[in-house]
């Protein structure tokens, strides 16, 4: 695959696909789509280049938004912030980035780098650090490869900028999270400076294209009156876990995260089946009648029962009819080091990971 341009119409498909890979988190991609449209309108299309084409000596940096998705629905971020964050990091590094990278293929962060790429005229690498969305900044494949999240920069909409240079990636998350909360829970960050050689090893390839493809599949299935959810399950090699109606949602905000549970009931209520989703920004654990049937790091996605688009954790509400699917993550997340970083126990759930296709789903 060669370099290609991301133009206005591509953004709509990418947003739909990014919401699915966002596994309920990562923020409303609608906002990301509007921001990307605004940037592409003002500065022209963004260039997307395949991961394998990135030269060894490239200077690649991740650009992302950090904060609470519920906040972003109100205090919508500004496009200037993304540019400021990259420029702040560049001046600390003393060299200019040659490529931009997505931290996560899910939610708004699939589109924030498109904004920055259009504004700065830098190519965007068709890859990301997760192959999905996760709530904390150290939860990326580059951490598994020993790459440092810092030096990193952070910028708010008021013009405040900060640089962190930390002893490890957990400290980067901790300090950046505190700053993000003080900045009003919607900050832009630029981090994980890496060479092209490191990027090729440590990123999950092709994920922005995958977002676009998922969006296209949903759009086409709907146009052809076919089942968009089945098309998504098929493309992700996943499984459908449950189909039903949300009967309760409880949430609380802890340390800048939206945590909570959603309870689902089967349609018509006859079967008496109960399904529970636990989330912390993203959907992390799925429980059917008391049995854990899927967990992080595999993808648990909640899709609108009919139109097949993703339902984010902040828009879950009573009475919605949804279908829950699970899909395998990048296998590197299932190594002992990967699970230590993003397994269920890290998120405070006292059980092992349950993988898609491990038998519990049938």
């Amino acid at each position, binding site marked *: 695959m060669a370099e290609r341009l991301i133009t206005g119409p591509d953004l709509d498909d990418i947003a739909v696909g990014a919401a699915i890979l966002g596994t309920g988190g990562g923020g409303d991609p609608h906002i990301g789509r509007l*921001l990307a449209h605004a940037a592409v309108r003002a500065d022209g299309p963004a260039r997307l280049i395949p991961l394998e084409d990135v030269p060894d000596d490239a200077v690649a940096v991740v650009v992302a938004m950090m904060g609470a998705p519920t906040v972003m629905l109100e*205090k919508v971020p500004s496009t200037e912030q993304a540019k400021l964050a990259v420029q702040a990091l560049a001046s600390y590094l003393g060299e200019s980035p040659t490529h931009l990278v997505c931290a996560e293929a899910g939610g708004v962060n699939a589109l924030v780098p498109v904004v920055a790429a259009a504004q700065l005229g830098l190519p965007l690498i068709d890859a990301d650090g997760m192959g999905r969305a996760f709530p904390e900044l150290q939860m990326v494949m580059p951490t598994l490869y020993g790459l440092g999240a810092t030096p990193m920069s952070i910028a708010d*909409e*008021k*013009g405040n900028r900060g640089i962190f240079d930390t002893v490890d990636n957990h400290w980067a998350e901790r300090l950046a999270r505190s700053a993000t909360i003080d900045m*009003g829970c919607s900050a832009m960050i630029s981090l994980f400076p890496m060479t092209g050689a490191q990027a090729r090893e440590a990123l999950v390839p092709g994920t922005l294209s995958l977002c676009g493809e998922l969006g296209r599949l949903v759009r086409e299935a709907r146009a052809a*009156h076919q089942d968009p959810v089945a098309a998504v399950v098929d493309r992700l090699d996943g499984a459908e876990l449950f189909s039903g109606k949300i009967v309760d949602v409880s949430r609380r905000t802890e340390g800048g995260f939206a945590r909570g549970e959603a309870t689902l009931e089967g349609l018509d209520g006859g079967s008496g089946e109960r399904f529970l989703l636990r989330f912390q920004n993203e959907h992390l654990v799925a429980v059917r009648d008391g049995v854990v049937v899927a967990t992080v790091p595999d993808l648990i996605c909640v899709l*609108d029962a009919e139109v097949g688009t993703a339902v984010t954790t902040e828009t879950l509400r009573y009475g919605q009819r949804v279908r829950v699917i699970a899909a395998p993550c990048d296998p590197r997340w299932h190594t002992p080091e990967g699970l230590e970083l993003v397994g269920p126990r890290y998120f405070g759930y006292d059980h092992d990971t349950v993988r898609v296709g491990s038998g519990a789903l049938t």
Partner: protein
Amino acid sequence: MRIGIDVGGTNTDAVLMDGQSVLAAVKTATTRDVTSGINTALAELKRQRAFDPLAVNAVMIGTTHFINALVEADRLAPTAAVRLGLPATASLPPMVDWPDRLVNAIAGRAYLCHGGHEFDGRHIAELREDEILRVAEELHRHEIRSVAISSVFSPVNAEFEQRAADILTGQLPAIAVSLSSEIGRMGLLERENATIINASLRELATQIVDGLSQSLEGAGISAPLYLSQNDGTLMDVDFARRYPVATFASGPTNSMRGAAFLSGVESCAVVDVGGTTSDIGVLQHGFPREATTEVSVAGIRTNFRMPDVLSLGIGGGSRIRGDGGVTVGPDSVGYRLADEALVFGGATLTATDVAVAAGRAVIGDPGLVKELDRSLVQAALLRIGRDIGDAIERIRTSPEPLPVVAVGGGSILLPDEIGDSGPVHRPEHFAVANAIGAAIAQIGGEVDRIFPVEPGQRQAVLDDAKQEAVDKAIASGAKPGSVRVVEVDEVPLAYLPGNATRIRVKAVGDLQLEAGRG
């Protein structure tokens, strides 16, 4: 006795009801000024069944007038949007995602000013009086008479919106102000969109509501006037003047609830065929299924909760064209049906003419369509049946056949059976289901405030809030036992002392029958 009136784009229908029984039902043409159509409907009602105007306890009006005004971009007031949020939110200014056509129709002007709150209640920036005064000058200069004010996190704290409103009305006493905190929930862009739409309809709302009140006075009716809202509950006229946007989904809600009342079928697809469009929705246990995705109105994203309705451009006034394959609509002669359709001596071939030619109904003079080409008539009706069947297929959630209830004046266009759904139910008074839905509209009770939620107390607090909403509905005239909670919304306000949570609960119930209300 109650009178229910539905003012659609084509027809104005009215019913006189006593408890559960329909005493009289009439269908008349909608007029451009709305009120003369209502006067005619009231007079017809009286002719059909003489009643003492003083014995009428309530008049309920459902109207699609306001949503139609938006869709048609007609009679909208020049409107400004003032958003308080700088230095945040500047990349996506008000109306950023609106179709240009509508921005132009409201001569939309957007102003970004400092203000807004952070998620934890801190100010993003202080409100600057000088900026608001400058906006006031601009509004004056551009002769803008209605303004929508939004502020970041105003559902949590509306102080800036209110202060900005005070400053603006201090300078421009006649300006109509719509505040986003009073109209929508969390989600700045969607809430702001709904507020701007509301602002653009304020002048029309005043005209229409004044006209309605005068019509009733003219007919000697002194009973209170209500308008039906999106959720099937009623609002009084003062509220309607300020919040016309709250009527937006009342059309489909009324028609579906009317269909359930008339047919006794509680779970079904309802096809409401009007003059211009067919609206297809699903009733589950007597209540309209709500749309779960974001609701776009005329291409504008809002966060209203609306019934899930599929609209097709097929109605009794749809133009039929026969060259090279038959087409039905999407353009319609609308309220000019009684002048332009062939059966009324006009010169336009409409769907109604085709139905009359096929013997499905007797309207106007059937003799005028005797000579119509049989194959054209058959092809047009086949097309209508197939398009509606496809839409029902799309809107149902399972392969199980769903009974079909047909209502609305245009439902004569439908065949006796559609797809695998079995015979089409056509309840008595099917043509005035909307007006009946308005007449049986419900009374709501709402709780919306910030509650301290101690750990482990969430369920108890929610239960208290629900009970309070139910009690309010009953106090407003709802029949005890019929009240149920239809909406629960929780917004945790992090970092405020006492684990503060904004809880919004809405309960609705049937209006207590007249006997019980004196």
